[in-house]
């Protein structure tokens, strides 16, 4: 009977402790690495390359090739999960622990500024300089922080406007043009336009695109929020009005990439903003109703092509690496034309080298490349800021309320502005 008396409090304390200890794990210092940035620059030897799950098996063959040519500087592949959040947290943990075993890491474009500001990434200058002249400029901008390059652009990604060739003979060039074509959708009893408007990272992508395409910007060059402009308002208002008018179907606020692709493939949408991966599936899947009528063009802007948000990954060298000379060589290897071509053909990863988009052989294989080139050339990185996690939340929260009509565009933008200001005010 006594045990019964004891068990309850113990069990209770146990459950409680789990809630707390689950959260206490992280922490520790944030700065550091500035000294480390000057060490190991000439180091050569075996290194490790860290990347998320290699779904299309492109990394291993590449590393085998490198290892055959560099028997004394072998690269080991450390594969993370396929979840971006988990990859981010894994990198943070290892960098915080100053792990010299994470020599080269594949970094999502939106993490670059955060990791650079923490002092974890080796600046690619002086001895470590990398030639980026052949790369498309926005991909280089996305890998830079405060004017310094911190990573080698490895793969890119941009939004594409898919449309129905059978219903729209000439694709729209501007947002207003696209909206004027919505009567076609109505007469066919389908939705006009959709992107990804669920409250998640995709909404940040879509809302930034709307703002950037109208000539606005979420952040100015100094990283300060810049949302109280007529352009930003016009961009946000485009989305809000289209949703209120029903041109964006009401279920679009539950859409991520896959749901919106499904709706388009089922013939329920006239226009779809999505990533290049849709092309393959929409033209090959048996259930697709748009197989033969799939058109692709650049995102619509104010007076011409819109500004896509940029996706993709860059390869960065850890400041704690002991073999930085080898690491730099490996970065160069990842960005050679041959490697980039291999990424594109085998992994459907958009190249960062402009020349490859005009490569006839590649275009024959991946017909979306010319459109994608326009998209990426006009792309704007998502806000480049070390406070990206807070900035993206501020955008999602307020853009979602605005689109649903719970807030005016002005209120949403002003709240966005204030939230970002507060986040970057530090504490």
């Amino acid at each position, binding site marked *: 009977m006594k045990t019964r008396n004891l068990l309850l409090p113990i069990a209770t304390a146990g459950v409680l402790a789990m809630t707390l200890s689950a*959260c206490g794990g992280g922490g520790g210092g944030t700065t550091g690495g500035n000294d480390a940035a000057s060490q190991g620059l000439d180091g050569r030897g075996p290194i490790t390359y860290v990347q998320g799950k290699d779904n299309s098996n492109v990394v291993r063959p590449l590393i085998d090739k490198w290892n055959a040519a560099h028997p004394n500087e072998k690269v080991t592949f450390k594969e993370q999960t396929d979840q971006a959040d988990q990859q981010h947290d894994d990198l943070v943990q290892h960098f915080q622990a100053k792990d010299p075993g994470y020599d080269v890491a594949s970094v999502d474009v939106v993490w670059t500024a955060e990791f650079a500001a923490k002092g974890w990434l080796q600046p690619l200058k002086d001895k470590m300089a990398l030639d980026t002249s052949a790369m498309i400029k926005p991909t280089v901008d996305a890998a830079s922080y405060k004017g310094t390059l911190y990573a080698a652009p490895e793969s890119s990604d941009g939004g594409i406007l898919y449309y129905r060739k059978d219903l729209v003979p000439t694709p729209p060039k501007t947002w207003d043009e696209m909206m004027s074509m919505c009567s076609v959708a109505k007469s066919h009893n389908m939705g006009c336009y959709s992107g990804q408007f669920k409250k998640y990272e995709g909404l940040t992508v879509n809302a930034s695109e709307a703002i950037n395409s109208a000539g606005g910007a979420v952040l100015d060059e100094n990283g300060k929020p810049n949302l109280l402009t007529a352009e930003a308002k016009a961009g946000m208002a485009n989305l809000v009005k289209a949703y209120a008018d029903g041109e964006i179907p009401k279920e679009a606020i539950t859409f991520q990439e896959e749901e919106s692709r499904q709706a388009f493939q089922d013939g329920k949408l006239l226009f779809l903003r999505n990533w290049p991966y849709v092309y393959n599936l929409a033209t090959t899947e048996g259930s697709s109703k748009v197989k033969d009528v799939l058109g692709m063009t650049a995102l619509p802007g104010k007076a011409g092509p819109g500004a896509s948000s940029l996706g993709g990954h860059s390869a960065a060298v850890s400041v704690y690496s002991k073999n930085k000379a080898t690491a730099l060589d490996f970065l160069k290897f990842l960005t050679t034309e041959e490697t980039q071509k291999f990424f594109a053909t085998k992994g459907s990863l958009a190249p960062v080298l402009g020349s490859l988009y005009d490569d006839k052989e590649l275009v024959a294989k991946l017909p979306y490349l010319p459109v994608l080139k326009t998209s990426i050339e006009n792309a704007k990185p998502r806000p480049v800021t070390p406070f990206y996690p807070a900035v993206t939340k501020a955008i999602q929260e307020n853009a979602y309320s605005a689109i649903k009509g719970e807030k005016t565009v002005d209120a949403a933008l002003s709240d966005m502005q204030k939230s970002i200001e507060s986040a970057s*005010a530090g504490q």
Partner: protein
Amino acid sequence: MATEVGPTSVKAPASGGAPIHHAPKGVGEDNRIATQGRWAAWLLAPTIIALSVVIVYPIITAIVMSFQKDAGLDPATGLFTEGGPAGFSNYTNWIFQQCPAPGGGTVDCPPGTLGAQFWSATGTTFFFAAVTVALETVLGFWMAVIMARAFRGRSLVRAAVLVPWAIPTAVTAKLWLFIFAFEGIGNKLFNTAVLWTGSEWPARWAVIIADVWKTTPFMALLILAGLQMIPAEVYEAAKVDGASAWQRFRMITLPLVKPALMVAILFRTLDALRMFDLPYILTGGANNTTTLSILVINQIRQGFNAAAALSTITFFIIFIVAFIFVRFLGANVVEQTGAGKGKK
């Protein structure tokens, strides 16, 4: 533990003398007890050390961290610098929703910051806990009563009922995500066009339905264990005395199963207050389905120290709830034990 609770008060007269503690504690035994005590301490030591490493240390670290500022940006270098001591600013950030202002000082957290969501997240968490636990208790009780009967295929039913509980929550959440999609089975089946994850009440009900589906079996089994400890003779005696089925349920089943029931409810409540996976995957926390745990995880990506403060606050909130439960429950337990002791 739960199984032990039920019958004691009933059987007390029968097993009354409690032959468990036979010998009275004599003076000569003091030595033996002392040696035993020392041995016990040694044998317990590894467990206690392990517990302090995995539980006490993180809790203390979390509390220490919660009084540190998160790293700020040095405008000159663009690099993060250590935040230094924060006093209670991490706590006021949540409780009074005071966020750092651009020029120094604080302002009311603007919508879009995590600080602004604290009280709504607290409300949501309690709302989910209250509704899901209530539904699960009622449904679980009903299932337990059915499973307690003897019928053909009973063990099959018991095993089948456990299936939802055995599926990992993340998988459950994905399954329900497909069901609640706009083009999903849910809308198809009932020929509706509800935006399940797109507006406030449907989103909340989606989470509640999925949670009830998943955890009712757990409730049912805990209650079933309690039910089975009630001796059949008690019911027979009541029948002989002419008690109706409702009377038997109210006067016998309920009071005798109550200790097991309370433990089950306590466990589920504490569990529900930490709810994370279901709303995180189903709605991403949109439309007022952000629970405290989701808020903690979101904050971890923005700054560990403020997250530590939030998890400490969450700890205390859950602690208070648990405390109320244990006091409430404990009254019963203490009373019974007290009675037992009196007899010894």
